[in-house]
């Protein structure tokens, strides 16, 4: 690979095409050239300023399957790598899709900073890919050089002095064992960011509100995340089933007024919407 030209080469590709659904065919990617998600992503972003959201990953998979077929041999390792790569792209893509909706929640870093970090990681991956190319050339240059790998002649083997008794310190064994006893630090699951909210918590919350009289569903979930809203709805249905609460809604998407059931037997509510 050319040492410096790749970036300008990639940068020189044509104008952007926003609003179009980009397929792998129009990108004309040589899949042989990619070795990791950063690598592919870098090229995708540089080429035609492709938005990852516009790219159909299914097309990438199909193109790759075609490519494998034309090559004739199914290299399991390469195929596995590709699956991992697509999974990584899917994850990236789903994050991008989420980020437009829940910007405040998920984007706790500035776009500029995010771009900077992404750029750094892509360049790092690129750097070692280039270094790998160089290693390949070195290995190629040594083609045909072999080394002798014969055991020592028997007469020599017999006369080699054995290490003397007590020459090794048993403390190294205790030390090694101590290192193995150390538990690795627990992995942080913070980035998954699942809010934990249980139905019983929301049941208690709703019952508390019910004791004060009528309330609107919006009041009950004011400012909560989607997961909490969903679980609160479950809790409300549960209260209805038990005959503790019922609700009214004047119009579609209108306010849902919740109040204690007049009778303790289940009946049908007027509308359920939200």
């Amino acid at each position, binding site marked *: 690979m050319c040492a410096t030209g790749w970036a300008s080469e990639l940068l020189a590709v044509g104008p952007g095409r926003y609003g179009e659904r980009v397929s792998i065919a129009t990108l004309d990617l040589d899949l042989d050239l990619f070795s990791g998600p*950063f690598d592919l992503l870098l090229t995708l972003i540089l080429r035609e300023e492709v938005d990852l959201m516009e*790219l*159909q990953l299914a097309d990438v998979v199909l193109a790759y399957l075609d490519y494998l077929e034309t090559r004739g041999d199914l290299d399991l390792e390469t195929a596995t790598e590709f699956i991992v790569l697509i999974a990584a792209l899917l994850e990236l893509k789903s994050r991008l899709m989420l980020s437009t909706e829940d910007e405040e929640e998920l984007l706790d870093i500035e776009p500029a900073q995010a771009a900077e970090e992404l750029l750094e990681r892509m360049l790092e991956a690129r750097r070692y890919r280039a*270094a790998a190319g*160089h290693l390949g050339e070195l290995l190629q240059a040594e083609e045909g050089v072999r080394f002798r790998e014969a055991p020592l002649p028997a007469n020599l083997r017999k006369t080699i002095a054995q290490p003397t008794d007590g020459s090794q310190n048993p403390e190294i064994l205790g030390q090694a064992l101590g290192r193995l006893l150390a538990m690795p630090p627990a992995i942080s699951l913070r980035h998954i960011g699942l809010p934990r909210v249980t139905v019983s918590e929301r049941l208690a919350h709703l019952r508390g509100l019910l004791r004060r009289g009528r309330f609107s569903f919006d009041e009950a979930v004011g400012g909560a995340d989607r997961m909490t809203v969903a679980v609160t709805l479950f809790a409300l249905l549960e209260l209805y089933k038990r005959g503790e609460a019922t609700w009214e809604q004047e119009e579609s998407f209108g306010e849902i007024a919740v109040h204690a059931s007049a009778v303790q037997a289940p009946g049908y509510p007027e509308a359920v919407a939200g």
Partner: protein
Amino acid sequence: MSESLQRTVEALLFLASDPLSEQELAEATECSAAEIEAALQALAGQYAEGRRGIRLRELGGGWTLASDPAAEDAARRLFSRRRVATLTPAQAETLAIVAYLQPISRPEITRIRGVSADSAAATLLERGLIEEAGRSQFGAVLYRTSTQFLKLFGLRTLQELPDAARWDPTPEEQAKLRERLLRAGEARAGSGAPAD
């Protein structure tokens, strides 16, 4: 005298499968560093390219004998196996990361590559191109390249590897990349429905 030392050095190089450092040769022959250096120089003259089927090479921090590549066709017929299987892209990349950043743990290699390096690392270990180098403070096994790696890749030391920064884009190119990345991000925030 110096001729007998030269013969002894040649015999040791023939017997050892790993490269021998000048210090090891000096200790084994009970000679001075200068004498060893002279003997190696004389040997190098004898083994000058094109005169012998064996070559004297300075590799992996020492000296070693290797076959002349001209004999490769015959060697392949005789031993019916390839010298070194070529590396897959994943293996080459993992090897490059270990070579430049050693000692380095598997999770760290995975972070840089963006995909798991476990199977590639296992193959490199099995082929003796990388080896363990202790553990990180969190208990992850660290890896470094081996003497075997230097030998097979024709390197005397790791310092012979070119600076990895030479493959980075120029500051101007980086600025352009940054700009494009930012613009792609802005367009994304403004653009409509996702494709799939």
